[in-house]
């Protein structure tokens, strides 16, 4: 009986992962709404055109790199490579913070070329969308903070429970990374 019960349990995906996927779907809707609003508003004319500061492309590279380091950390965790697990996780956190700093530099650069927060909806949208994305990255850094305490304060134990928790962080982090890639491509294609 109990082996049947175990098999029955294993056939299901971890409920927390399901919940996170659903939450990600709702976040996709938030940003989908923003970018749709951007298109609708842009089509109505009176749209200030400007070139996106280069620093945003640097930040794109940084957040892409952070996904790679987090993946290396995760494979290190699974393979029992404690050193790589810890080192790459710190690298991810540093890159994540660097991304936030670079985004801030990007907003400053926007301000300098006259694309201020209130001058035209075209620039307002960039601040609001990238700002809300940065808030999501900060949430990811907070989650990473929990993972860091697991890695550095608790003894290393690659248990199923620990792995599932780590996987939640990984899942969310890759999401905010991909989200930014979508946003930067969107901004490039819809010329602001």
């Amino acid at each position, binding site marked *: 009986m*109990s082996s049947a019960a175990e098999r029955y349990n294993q056939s299901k995906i971890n409920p927390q992962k399901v*919940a996170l996927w659903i939450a990600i779907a709702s976040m996709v*809707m938030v940003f*989908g*709404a923003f970018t749709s*609003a951007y298109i609708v508003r842009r089509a*109505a004319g009176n749209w200030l055109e400007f070139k996106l500061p280069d620093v945003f492309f640097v930040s794109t590279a940084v957040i892409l790199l952070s996904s790679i380091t987090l993946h290396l950390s995760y494979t290190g965790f699974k393979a029992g490579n404690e050193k790589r697990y810890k080192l790459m996780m710190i690298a991810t956190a540093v890159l994540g913070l660097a991304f936030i700093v670079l985004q801030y530099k990007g907003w400053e650069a926007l301000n300098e070329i006259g694309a201020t927060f209130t001058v035209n*909806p075209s620039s*307002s949208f960039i601040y609001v969308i990238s700002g809300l994305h940065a808030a999501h990255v900060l949430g990811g850094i907070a989650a990473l903070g929990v993972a860091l305490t697991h890695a550095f304060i608790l003894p290393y134990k690659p248990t199923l429970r620990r792995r599932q928790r780590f996987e939640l962080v990984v899942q969310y982090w890759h999401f905010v990374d991909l989200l930014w890639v979508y946003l930067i491509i969107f901004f490039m294609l819809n010329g602001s």
Partner: protein
Amino acid sequence: MAQVVTAAETLEDKLTEELGYNDHFHEHHHGDKYQSNFLTTYIFSTDHKIIGRQFLMTGIFWAFIGAAMSIVFRLQLGFPEADMAWLRPILGKWIQVDPNGIGKLDPEFYYSLVTLHGTILVFFVLTAGLSGTFSNILIPLQIGARDMASPLLNAFSYWFFFLAGVVLFLSLFLSTGPFSGGWTAYPPLSALPQASEGSGAGMTMWIVSMALFIVSALLGGINYITTVLNLRTKGMTLWRMPLTIWAFFITAVLGVLSFPVLLSGVLLLMFDRSMGTSFYLSEIVVGGQVLERIGGSPILFQHLFWFLGHPEVYIIILPAMGIVSEVLSVHSRKPIFGYTAMVYSMLAIGFLAFIVWAHHMFMSGVNPFISNFFVIFTLIIAVPSAVKVFNWIGTIYGSNFRFTSASLFGVGFVSMFISGGLTGIFLGNSAIDIQMHDTYFVVAHFHIVMGIAAFFGMFAGVYHWFPKMFGRFMNETLGKIHFWGTLVGAYAIFWPMHYTGLAGVPRRYYDAGATFESFRHFGDLNKFITVAAIFVFFLQVLFIINFFYSIFSGRKVTVKNPWGANTLEWTTPIEAGHGNWPGRIPTVQRWSYDYSKNGEEFIPQYVPLKEGERDMGH
């Protein structure tokens, strides 16, 4: 009779022991530490049954407030000359008393009442109070789960809703009054703090309240979906789920996908209000001053708002549909007619919900060619809706129908849904909308099809599951008075509005359009509507009295399964503790609608299929 019941219960115990699924829940005793005192048991509970009842009680509180508001503005509309000074103790300075001692409702406050009536009823009562209540109580019980996937987030969902209510309630006491720009919060009235009295602090509090409410809806929705997908008991395949669960599941999906869009829209609104952006504001003159904002589009807000707003009406009506399907089937003692078609039609309605939003905007300047697209998809919704109506009628047709308060409200729901749905076909046409938009025809349509209908679904659910929630029955006589009075009264309120609306009487006017010569002759009709509204209001007070009286002194439930229903919630003890089942979780052997089959009146879901018997769920 009593012996038969005992036999059935021993059979149930035997089957649960034999086939039940042992999840070792009670070996850990983690259920009890949360319920150690009054506060943790009844207030800060993480038990889904308590949280569901919290949603219900809070919903009833808000329904009372919202309905009382409608009575105040109906008095104004029906009896514009009457003295309202007697309301001064409650409404204070919003009743202006002239030197002759005649009290008049402040016009600005009239708009606040209309605005808050809409906000409260749509969000607090028919979203949180309906799907919040029944998703919480029924999802774990009917799918055979110990609790929600995340009981803690579930409790947060309630408390965010509670806080949203507190913020909105406090806005009633602002010296400038609550928000008054309509529940849709269109800019510029919502975007410019100086636009009207309620647009300042009142609107700020409205936005904060909505933001909290959206968080509540998202936390709840994520939980409901995860629970349905992950925590179904052994044997409970998707196609064996009761239609209630299908309805709550689809409702939650709609909420999780549409509320975030409102959040985006409201966020941009906040930036327009306080940071000086112009997403929604274009060149506007307010109080003789030209604003510096340029280039915004108020239509943009309408798009974002109605992308939530339309799915929202299905978030309201789908749970009612699920509840009514279950209640009608149980009380007809017949399987639901066309179970699969019921599920697919709900999925179709859920899908179409996302591609019809602009039918709320036909007259606000959207491209007429784009309107064509929205007209077609809007009218297509009539197809799955008609399938559902046909199936409900098919379910009760030729049945040995039990006339209980619950089943009567189920039938009342079908009646309201047909009446209100038919006028939806009028309004879905962009050409007819030129005459009908913003008239009482619209008011009549949406009040019948989603207001009254959803309330009837909710009442059906409350009367039906009251024994499960409180271990007692509600008073049937009062329930039937409540039903017949409300059925007749609700039609008396909204039927005449179709006539005034067709004639073009605009909605939301303080004087019901009496400044126009051509609308003056509707004065008597307006009086009639107001009297009917007061009559219906007191019937709902009767319901509330019955509800609370029955909690403490209603007839006690003596058997686990008083209605003879098949679903799993009736296999739990009458007063189910944390974890719902004291021992093993029953496993599911068949679909939930085996009524009047194989010579038996009903065959619960835990009873194994006989040799050669085909399961109706697939």
